[in-house]
């Protein structure tokens, strides 16, 4: 019963987010602020993780193929497929559920606890549109983060593969080009947009409807991470079944 109530309140929240818009000039400022906080501030950690995980994928692939019949370009091929299809869109999104999601939940939750949301409501402002809509718009830029992650992941694989002596540069690049299916990139970005929407709305929902004090803000952040990750994994499965099966 509680789950039904939660699902209902999430969709009611979405309806309120897209109704009674905030004044344009203020909304513009809020969107720029959210782009800075959610997108720009995430680039460092995404770049770091992507580069090194890309390197590890290349090394692991190279170490696990000692059959001389398997072509050397498989290192580049496996790195490309792993990074583009799953690591960049899905696993970076789960990492972002922790970083971005807990930031969104705790900032909105703190506003709830300190009555700042009530202050917005009393002024006649649609607090959901004011707080959540700019986050959804800002996360339209999230695919750029994933594109950077894809590039750096593959670059990391190339650096680790070539300078670690596991592959030649030519073989690695050949692996990147062989059997390249453009639709795989389209598929990756389709699911990135869906994950971006989940990343913006689920943590906002957790923060907005939380009750209690500082301790509950912490609990809401944890719940937000759990719910967001679960939804990302489930929608990943559904989208993959629909688009690639």
């Amino acid at each position, binding site marked *: 019963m509680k789950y039904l109530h939660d699902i209902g309140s999430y969709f009611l929240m979405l309806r309120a987010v897209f109704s009674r818009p*905030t*004044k344009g*000039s*203020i909304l513009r400022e809020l969107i720029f602020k959210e782009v800075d906080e959610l997108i720009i501030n995430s680039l460092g950690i995404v770049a770091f993780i992507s580069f090194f995980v890309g390197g590890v994928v290349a090394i692991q692939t190279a170490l696990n193929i000692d059959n001389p019949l398997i072509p050397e370009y498989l290192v580049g091929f496996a790195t490309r497929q792993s990074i583009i299809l799953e690591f960049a869109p899905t696993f970076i999104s789960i990492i972002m559920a922790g970083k971005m999601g807990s930031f969104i939940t705790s900032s909105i939750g*703190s*506003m709830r606890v*300190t*009555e*700042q949301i*009530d*202050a917005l*409501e*009393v*002024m*006649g*402002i649609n607090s959901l549109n004011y707080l959540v809509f700019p986050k959804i718009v800002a996360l339209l830029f999230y695919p750029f983060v994933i594109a950077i992650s894809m590039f750096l992941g593959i670059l990391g694989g190339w650096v680790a593969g070539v300078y670690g002596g596991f592959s030649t540069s030519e073989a690695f690049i050949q692996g990147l080009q062989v059997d390249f299916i453009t639709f795989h990139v389209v598929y990756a970005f389709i699911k990135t947009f869906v994950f971006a929407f989940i990343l913006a709305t689920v943590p906002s929902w957790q923060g907005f409807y939380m009750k209690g004090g500082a301790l509950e803000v912490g609990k809401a952040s944890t719940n937000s991470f759990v719910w967001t990750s679960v939804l990302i994994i489930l929608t990943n499965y559904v989208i993959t079944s629909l688009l690639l099966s």
Partner: protein
Amino acid sequence: MITVENLHKSFGSEHILKGLSTTFDKGKTNLIIGQSGSGKTVFLKCLLGLFEANDGKIIFEDKAIQDMNDDEKRSLRENMGMVFQGSALFDSMNIEENVMFPLRMFSKKKKSEMLDRVNEVLLRVNLENVNKKYPSEISGGMQKRVAIARAIVNNPKYLFCDEPNSGLDPRTAILIDNLIQEITKEYDITTVINTHDMNSVMEIGEKIVFLQKGNLAWQGDNTQIFKTDNKDVTDFVYSSDLFKKIRDVQIKEN
């Protein structure tokens, strides 16, 4: 003026407000008092429109909030100022931005005009040179003043305060009370204050509504409250040692 008629509010099976009827007069500081759990905050939130009443009417001037359409409700909200218990200033904005916020939302003034108005109200609440500071960089008393400045910046018709002097030292608490009363007279607004502070009752209680377990147990002003025979009120008023001693001295003198 705000008129409340037979107001009921329940949460599930819990009946919080049980048919309240009263009026809050224009140009006066109207106080809602009562023990914790008496329904003060729920009553205030109903007046603010944050809670919807189950039954009864809240009439602003001549129209009940229940009969207003969305545009009328929005326009009413633009005429309300609210001072929250914890000030509820926006952490991400400095003092100037906090006070300017309602103006930016609802007025079509130029930025220079808005800035002039912000400086005017900050000066009115006796704050200078704090424009660029953030809420966390000023004291609790100053935060309350900023909250008052933000509440009156749009020239509201109604000012609501939820325990405006809680957490303040007695001297600052009196200053805040007096400031609210002065502003009420100066701008001729209807002010409703939710409090359980007897000093506020003594200082600025021009109209007092006493709630007891969701019922309106008594109403009057700050001279009548010390003379009433209503046992609930006397229990509440004389629960403080200070007031007990004052009463004993008065009895001795008489």
